């Protein structure tokens, strides 16, 4: 083939192309050494001609390279090395002294058998290609892919977080409007309650006075003419005056009782929605439970008996409005777990640096496969339109923000117990809280 081509041209190309070319005979003596090899090794053809490759370059990995070349001689096949496994054959400076970032020229080598007329391999020609540029690009590409994978993963995480935040926002917005409504209503109710209360006081006094007057009249009744007496006793019978006297007092005292109940509900509502205080506070969790129970009492009255087993743990640094939300969700969930009527037990206690609250019911329980999922947003087993499935996910997030824990223990058919663990101390007092849903409510 070579003899059909211009030998001068071929010689020129071998000598001058940007590719290392050298050849050895079967004793590993150098028989060809092109310009590229000269430039990069610093050793010229004249100085190397006929010398042993391994004597001239003792730094070469001799046993491996010898074997490799021997194989080519014996089998007459090509052989290769790639920079990916073997960075280089000869340690040459690479062509990017400034922008490189690698310490030597990365090389791909090809070993070619050169056969004599009888087909026996006479020489092995080795070409050496500078792959530094390609390798660098490939390495940067690989790095870029790693970085972009990492970024994608982060984005994925952010999307999940965003979703959570959105749910939380949705729920807290709902609660915020309920809170504002409650606060507004409470405020509106407070005024009329005030004057009804004071009127009721006046009424009571007036009635007492009237009764005093009546007693005097009654004592003088016998002095009236007989006809008038008969008329009076007829009317007294008609209106059941004896009963009316007693009932009047009872009515007033019952009304006062009812009114004080209304005032407590209003103040609980205000407490619950924390119109006046929000953010981190030192709070009594048992009081939180009582407030919450008052607010939801209507919801649960006909479904459950409430049993309190308070252990009087220390006060806890928390956002009480949020703890109230958690308790409300848990108590409402519990009340919805009874096919008929059941019992909800609320316990408190202290454990190390934590205070715990348990909300336990003897309802239907949660099957194990659902226990993994109940804290997921939108997980619900309740009929469409009944539950949003957000309750527990919001609870979980609130407790997590308190650096506490929310643990479920449940057995199907026996009941469920949610345990809230809250660290007693955070050092967060005075910091403002992100979910201050009620701070803009009218006072």
């Amino acid at each position, binding site marked *: 083939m070579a003899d059909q081509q211009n030998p001068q041209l071929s010689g020129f190309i071998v000598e001058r192309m940007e590719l290392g070319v050298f050849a050895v005979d079967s004793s590993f003596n150098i028989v060809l050494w092109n310009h590229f090899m000269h430039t990069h090794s610093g050793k010229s053809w004249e100085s190397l001609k006929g010398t042993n490759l391994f004597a001239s370059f003792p730094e070469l990995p001799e046993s491996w390279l010898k*074997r490799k070349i021997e194989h080519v001689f014996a*089998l007459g096949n*090509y*052989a*290769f090395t790639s920079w*990916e*496994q073997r960075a280089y054959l000869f340690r040459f400076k690479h062509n990017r002294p400034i922008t490189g970032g690698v310490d030597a020229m990365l090389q791909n080598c090809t070993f070619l058998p050169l056969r004599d007329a009888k087909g026996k391999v006479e020489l092995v020609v080795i070409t050496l290609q500078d792959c530094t540029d390609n390798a660098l690009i490939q390495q940067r590409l690989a790095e870029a892919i790693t970085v972009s994978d990492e970024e994608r993963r982060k984005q994925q995480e952010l999307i999940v977080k965003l979703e959570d935040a959105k749910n939380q926002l949705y729920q807290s917005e709902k609660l915020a409007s309920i809170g504002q409504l409650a606060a507004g209503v409470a405020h509106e109710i407070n005024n009329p309650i005030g004057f009804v209360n004071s009127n009721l006081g006046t009424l009571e006094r007036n009635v007492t006075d009237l009764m005093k007057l009546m007693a005097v009249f009654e004592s003088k009744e016998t002095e009236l003419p007989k006809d008038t007496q008969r008329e009076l006793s007829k009317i007294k019978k008609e209106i059941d005056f004896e009963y009316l006297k007693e009932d009047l007092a009872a009515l007033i005292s019952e009304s006062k009782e009812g009114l004080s109940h209304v005032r407590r509900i209003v103040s609980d509502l205000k407490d619950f929605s924390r119109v006046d205080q929000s953010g981190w506070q030192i709070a009594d969790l048992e009081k939180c439970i009582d407030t919450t129970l008052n607010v939801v009492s209507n919801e649960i009255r006909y479904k459950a008996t409430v049993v309190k087993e308070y252990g009087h743990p220390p006060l806890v640094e928390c956002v009480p409005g949020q703890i109230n939300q958690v308790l409300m969700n848990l108590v409402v969930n519990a009340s919805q777990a009874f096919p008929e009527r059941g019992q909800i037990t609320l316990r408190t206690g202290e454990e190390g640096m934590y205070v715990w609250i348990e909300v336990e019911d003897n309802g239907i329980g949660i099957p194990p496969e659902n226990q993994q999922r109940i804290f997921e947003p939108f997980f619900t087993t309740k009929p469409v339109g009944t539950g949003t499935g957000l309750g527990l996910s919001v609870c979980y997030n609130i407790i997590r923000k308190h650096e506490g824990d929310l643990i479920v223990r449940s057995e199907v058919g026996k009941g469920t117990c949610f345990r809230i663990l809250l660290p007693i101390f955070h050092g967060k007092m005075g910091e403002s809280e992100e979910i201050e849903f009620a701070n803009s409510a009218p006072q």
Partner: protein
Amino acid sequence: MNKGLSEDQTDALQELANIGMGQAGDSLARIWKEFVHLSIPKIAIVDASRLPALIHGFVGDTAVSASRQAFHGGFRGEVLVVVSAKDRNGLANLMGYEGQLDSVEREEVLLDIVNLLGGACVGGIAQQVNAEIGFSAPSLIGEDIDPLDVIHPDQLAIDKALSLEVCFQVENRSLTAHLVILLPNNEVGALAELLDQFLCTL
């Protein structure tokens, strides 16, 4: 499309592969000073979808390492070498490596195995039928992979292939390598022609 090789052609190919590999095995045995055993080459036309099962058949349920190399010239195709994973160091010191191998050296050994065996077999055949064959640099398919994962038929550009299978063993080294030469169906014609020419010269 070609229907494959005639019986004569198949016999000839088997004989040529046998001789080619035999010579190569002798040469290697002389360099390594170890005995080399070669199985009689098995030739078949297989559906691409059957290739994973074929490879699984060589080794059974054990992790394997595999590498491949393309050849071109008188006929074109790819050589695939599958080595059970536990054997992968078997050839290393025959290849002049010293000491424990690190992970890139293990890769290099796998590349060298496919290069040596593929060259021996394909080169041996080509030389006898007077065809010029060149080889591209080999590449790695995978280390410690399931034999069924060596080839994914849905990623192949062919639906039928000629497979030539040889099992290569070095005594005292517990190395068994399975070599498969895959020829796309439309290359079988070129090989058949070369075989015919060769048969004429006999």
